[in-house]
């Protein structure tokens, strides 16, 4: 069931956004651990945008590095640290589009407004369309929220839902050392905890 395209539910997850703001604040003070956390938290989201858009691994790595270099250079200028996720997604999107445009020998927009207009004209289902990027952001939020659950819940939900080939209850039961019949109620409780974090 593709609920994401039919149900209008926004994640609030303000707790996580606040953490982002705190990370940026600490980075500005020179806290290396905060920067490491920021990179770890967003590396997957940033690399996925150019990869989804069809860029090679090497090109995607270039985008990834440019995004983090830009963040590093503008660290003290970002006006809304709590919205850093959106900033990173937009920056990654623009840099990805820059490479695609170069490959197609398209003209270069001269102003940011022109670039915005160009991006807005992308088809809804194109890899860089807002709808697709919002879904990526939400998947990122889920992964970040997952990190806040206890280890057992992380393992259960990751094994059942995040692996390419979903694990069976029997496999999950073996992995965490409980009976197979316990997995279903444990899974439900873990999902409720996850939902609670995302709905905060």
């Amino acid at each position, binding site marked *: 069931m593709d609920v994401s395209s039919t149900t209008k539910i926004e994640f609030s997850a303000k707790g996580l956004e606040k953490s982002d703001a705190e990370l940026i604040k600490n980075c500005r003070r020179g806290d290396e651990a905060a920067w490491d956390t920021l990179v770890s938290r967003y590396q997957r989201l940033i690399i996925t945008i150019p990869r989804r858009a069809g860029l090679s691994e090497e090109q995607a790595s270039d985008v990834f*590095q440019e995004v983090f270099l830009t963040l590093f250079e503008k660290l003290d200028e970002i006006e809304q640290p709590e919205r850093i996720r959106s900033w990173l997604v937009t920056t990654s999107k623009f840099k990805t589009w820059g490479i695609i445009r170069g490959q197609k020998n398209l003209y270069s927009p001269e102003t940011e407004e022109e670039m915005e207009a160009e991006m807005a004209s992308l088809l809804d289902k194109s890899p860089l369309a807002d709808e697709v990027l919002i879904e990526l952001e939400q998947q990122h939020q889920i992964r970040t929220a997952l990190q806040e659950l206890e280890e057992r819940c992380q393992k259960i939900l990751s094994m059942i839902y995040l692996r390419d080939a979903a694990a069976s209850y029997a496999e999950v039961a073996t992995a965490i050392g409980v009976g197979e019949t316990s997995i279903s109620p444990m899974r439900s409780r873990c999902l409720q905890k996850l939902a609670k974090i995302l709905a905060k």
Partner: protein
Amino acid sequence: MILGMTNGNENLINKIVSLMETDSSVDAPQDAIKWAKNIFRTRAVQPEKSLMQKVLAVLQMDLSPNKAAFGERSASAGQARQMLFQAGEISIDLRIAETEKGFNLRGQILGEGFANCTVKVGKFETKSNDLSEFSFTEIPSGKYDLTLQTEETEIVIENLIF
């Protein structure tokens, strides 16, 4: 439906499950992550800009013990050395008295905004009261800077010799 869930909660959980199942994101290459983490090592930490205004106080009057101010009767002179400093619109009245165990310092800040401020003499620290008065006892002899700190202003009296 999971037991104990409302419809809204169920919709949210269904959405979470759907997004997790369709999540095909990948980790960035390890060398790219390492590179991104390392660029921060080049950042020179900028000290936070302080908006605090620092003002040096200037000595206006210095009366030794038992010496009356000009125009006053000698009977009104106290046992303590009296000093008056000026820092902009703020005046600081100090009385320093020597005792067997060191020096006692009493003072009052005359002007707005210095009630309950931090007062330091060298390593000694206290707070002014509601009338902007403060005192220290048994300060060893020596040369000290006296500072009066509020959130916006720091007044410094340099090189007080006890």
